[in-house]
């Protein structure tokens, strides 16, 4: 019978202190030096990591009740509006929300980073006043300790692969993929490649709802499929999606996070985003999973898209792989183009290594997912339709 190991067995080894863990990078050289079969039998867990800008990030906060109490209707944190159309003193602050006084310089991501850094944050709220919540206005200071709950809930993180951005137009453009010079003078990419969580488990066989992960320097969880989770995109012969595919919605405790792994970012003339440090341990439960974690940068292909075309479907100018991209230049349409990353490979490596340390020290246990992620679905576009079209479409798809 083929060799297998269960997550329960792995956790027992973590408890006993004899678990063997390698990062998704280390496993590659191990398989080369010790051989495929030996490495498979030896390594229990492979850790992954990524540290890139993830706009779909935000946090739920509960401020506690003031005296007299207020039913917050509008709320600002350091002049950044948060959403409080939920219970009286609950709010959600989104990473990309901009400050009303400082604009692009400061946004929701900065508020989250400041909270994690134990800095004071100015809270301002207004209300219409009710019999049970008479106060109409409040201004005070908070930090993460003073909050009842403060947790990250990110609807879409850890994109499985992405795209390469290039600009064929005659003017410089400013995008979430950085500054792109005219006439294909540079190209940017954004993935941890061979270290990236979902590229090491391309069919979501171990990563699912309930999986315990590294999030922002603390232990967090996969909460749901991420928004725009799109496993059905075209895949190469190794099963790696060519372009953005699976995504994760994740949850984690701000009170336990470390600022080093949650960093606010400003992309010139685009806006605010947040670099999120995320790592997922992959239990090597069988040979198929082992084969998957041996993925290398050269196995991961990614389409080059023209970001100067401001349309939903941007023209693809070619397909390259991450080994080529990390070399510093690629050939696109017969021309050599300089390439640069937007996500930090150094930090991705650090996160995978940190997660490995936690497991070795017996501080982090692996979890079975409680529900797998969808394996077969696409992203739907938003069409501009009238009510009649909607009804016809609804009947057709029913």
């Amino acid at each position, binding site marked *: 019978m083929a060799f297998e190991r269960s997550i329960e067995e792995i956790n027992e080894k973590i408890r006993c202190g004899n678990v063997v863990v390698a990062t998704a990078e280390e496993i590659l050289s191990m398989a080369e030096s010790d051989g495929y079969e030996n490495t498979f039998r030896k390594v229990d867990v492979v850790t992954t990591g990524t*540290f*890139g*800008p993830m706009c779909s990030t935000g946090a739920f906060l509960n401020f506690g009740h003031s005296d007299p109490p207020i039913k917050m209707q509008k709320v600002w944190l350091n002049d950044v509006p948060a959403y409080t159309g939920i219970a009286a003193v609950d709010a959600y602050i989104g990473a990309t929300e901009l400050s009303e006084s400082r604009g692009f310089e400061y946004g929701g991501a900065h508020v989250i980073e400041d909270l994690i850094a134990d800095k004071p944050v100015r809270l301002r709220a207004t209300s219409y006043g009710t019999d049970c919540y008479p106060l109409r206005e409040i201004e005070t200071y908070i930090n993460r300790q003073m909050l009842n709950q403060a947790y990250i809930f990110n609807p879409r993180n850890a994109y499985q692969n992405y795209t390469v951005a290039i600009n064929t137009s005659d003017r410089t453009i400013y995008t979430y993929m*950085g*500054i792109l*010079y005219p006439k294909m*003078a*540079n190209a*940017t990419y954004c993935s941890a490649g061979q270290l990236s969580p979902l590229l090491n488990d391309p069919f979501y066989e171990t990563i699912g709802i309930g999986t315990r992960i590294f999030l922002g320097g603390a232990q967090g969880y996969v909460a749901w499929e991420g928004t725009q989770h799109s496993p059905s995109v075209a895949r190469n012969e190794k099963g790696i999606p060519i372009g953005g595919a699976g995504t994760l919605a994740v949850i984690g405790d701000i009170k336990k996070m470390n600022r080093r792994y949650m*960093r606010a*970012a*400003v*992309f*010139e003339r685009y806006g605010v*985003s947040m*670099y999120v440090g995320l790592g997922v341990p992959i239990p090597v439960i069988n040979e198929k999973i082992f084969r998957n974690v041996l993925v290398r940068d050269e196995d991961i292909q990614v389409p080059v898209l023209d970001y100067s075309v401001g349309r939903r479907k941007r023209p693809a100018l070619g397909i390259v792989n991450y080994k080529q991209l*990390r*070399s*510093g230049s690629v050939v696109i349409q017969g021309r050599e183009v*300089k*390439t*640069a*990353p*937007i*996500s*930090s*490979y*150094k*930090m991705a*490596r650090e996160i995978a290594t940190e997660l490995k340390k936690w497991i070795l020290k017996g501080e982090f246990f692996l979890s079975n997912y409680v529900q797998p992620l969808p394996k077969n679905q696409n992203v739907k576009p938003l069409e501009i339709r009238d009510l009649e079209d909607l009804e016809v479409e609804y009947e057709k798809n029913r």
Partner: protein
Amino acid sequence: MKKTAKKAERRQIFRKRVMLTFSQKLVGQPVMYRLIKEYDVAVNILFAKVLPNETGKLVVEFSASDEKRLNKGINFLKSLGVRIEPISKEIVRDEENCIDCGACTSVCRSGALSIDRKSFELVFDQEKCVLCEMCIHACPMKVINISF
């Protein structure tokens, strides 16, 4: 050994990095040609923006065998009305807060900023920097600045 010899050799040559601003009128004239030919000053152009009927800008490194010769050349430029500013400013990075993402390397045309292929750390080579300041705009962490 080799490195020290190279350094000593460098010391013998007098170098100066300056920013030159030309008026519209001067842009049409072969100023650099005369500086090289008549004053024997080597000119290494690091950054140039010279367009017809516009104020021109050059960042150059002058080198000559002695200071006197170099100053003569600079006086010649001054006599033509070229504005000369010494480059004492430089690009500085707050290393503590840098995340080594590499976004700045994307816009760095001079190759002063790069990601090391092994450590994946950001490397900055001051010598290659032409002070175009694009990295300041590209840095998502806003940790790159210019110091005077």
